[in-house]
């Protein structure tokens, strides 16, 4: 499968990349990892006339805590998340998410930012970022714009990024003490997209009840889904079996899956219910430690 012909541009700086984007508008796409875009180009579903390769731009690959946020640079690869001591020790939910994305080869190239910017509801990081209450930084010719993650995903392959903007940073508020998270994904085989997956992030209060709750759902709708009903229900409550089961039920009610090769819609809803319960349970365990 051969992509249609395109012109290949390789800017050395972000301003140069943005200038190319503004010059070519809808005819241009950013190439970072390319692990979602290039397969689409080979199928001719995506047909950009201009490909702007940003992989040689320096200063965009970092994982650091600063000013109360975990900041992940726009070119940080999934493999770098997996290797990061900071992520492994403090952010198991992010490690768990990275681990179930595709496979080692893809993770060497695929970027976290691309996983968000591509706008595919089947990608894994969106649900985790929803659960963590993250923000993304969109850089355009007028500077940086901070977008809360709940406002970022509009529709299938459609995000709040404007045509001349590049996603240059992801910011996650450093969770307070007594916080924990987990990402659970069911897939048919290693590397597959999720049949369904749930991200859960909790902060407990002094009595062991849920003070903050974030729940994100993967691949059960046109966008990743923030399970607000379940979040609202669980807030202030103890994380016992009954409440977790009810939270799972409410999360499944927010899911809008399609029936496809991965299973019927009803099956996926049932899956969300069970995965939500288990993800919340594991998050609570981690928060309690």
């Amino acid at each position, binding site marked *: *499968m*051969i*992509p*249609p*012909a*395109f*012109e*290949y541009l*390789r800017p050395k700086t972000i301003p140069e990349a943005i200038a190319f984007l503004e010059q070519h508008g809808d005819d241009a796409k950013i*190439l970072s990892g*390319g*692990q979602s875009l*290039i*397969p689409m*180009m*080979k199928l001719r579903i995506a047909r950009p006339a201009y*490909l702007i*390769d940003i*992989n040689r731009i320096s200063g965009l690959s970092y994982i650091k805590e600063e000013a109360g946020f975990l900041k992940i640079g726009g070119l940080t690869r999934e*493999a770098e998340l997996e290797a990061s001591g900071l992520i492994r020790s403090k952010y198991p939910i992010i490690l768990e998410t990275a681990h179930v994305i*595709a*496979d*080692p*080869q*893809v993770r*060497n*190239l695929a970027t976290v930012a691309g996983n968000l910017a591509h706008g595919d509801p089947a990608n894994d990081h969106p649900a985790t970022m929803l659960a963590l209450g993250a923000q993304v930084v969109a850089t355009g010719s007028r500077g940086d714009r901070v977008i809360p993650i709940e406002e970022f995903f509009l529709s299938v392959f459609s995000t709040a990024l404007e045509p001349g903007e590049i996603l240059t940073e992801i910011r996650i508020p450093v969770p307070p003490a007594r916080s924990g998270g987990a990402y659970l994904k069911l897939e048919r085989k*290693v*590397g597959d997209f999720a049949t369904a997956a749930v991200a859960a992030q909790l902060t407990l209060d002094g009595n062991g009840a849920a003070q903050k709750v974030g729940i994100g759902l993967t691949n059960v709708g046109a966008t990743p889904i923030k399970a607000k009903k379940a979040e609202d229900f669980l807030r202030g409550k103890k994380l016992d079996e009954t409440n977790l089961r009810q939270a799972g039920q409410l999360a499944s009610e927010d899911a809008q899956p399609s029936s496809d090769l991965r299973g019927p819609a009803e099956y996926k809803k049932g899956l969300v219910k069970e995965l939500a319960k288990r993800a919340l349970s594991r998050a609570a365990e981690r928060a309690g430690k």
Partner: protein
Amino acid sequence: MAMTKEQLVQVKVNGRERQASVEPRLLLVHFIREVLELTGTHIGCDTSHCGACTVLLNGKTVKSCTMFAVQADGGEILTVEGLSADGQLHPLQEGFKEEHGLQCGFCTPGMLMSSYALLRTNPQPSEEEIRWGISGNLCRCTGYQNIVSAVRYAAAKMAKDTTTPVEMAGVGGKK
């Protein structure tokens, strides 16, 4: 048929400088197989699933069917042809031979490259780590068991025989 301006791609492949003028849409796997005439790298699925096209670029495994040749410009590539030195099989190749780690052989170059990358960063992997390391490579023939044995064989051999170069020519990049 639309054609765009060709671009020069300069890469070091298995230790040798190579270059060619190519269309941007030329996939890295086609560059390797058809321009460089190194046909050890295989196209198994063309949908980025099977890993038969796996090579090392700047020290990291990549699926060469999911990259454009122009992206590799200025880099270093290692293909399966680069594994043996001076006519000697690399311990991994010997392992696949001794442990019957292949039947049809189609997935084998990709398996070798992924295993090679694994052993560079984890010279004594457990079975679980081997299976994780090759999780981007599909095999329809073997059921993977003998592939795991082959990697173990190589790991054991490389631990004993420290004259085997761990770094093959042309890999480059950071570990």
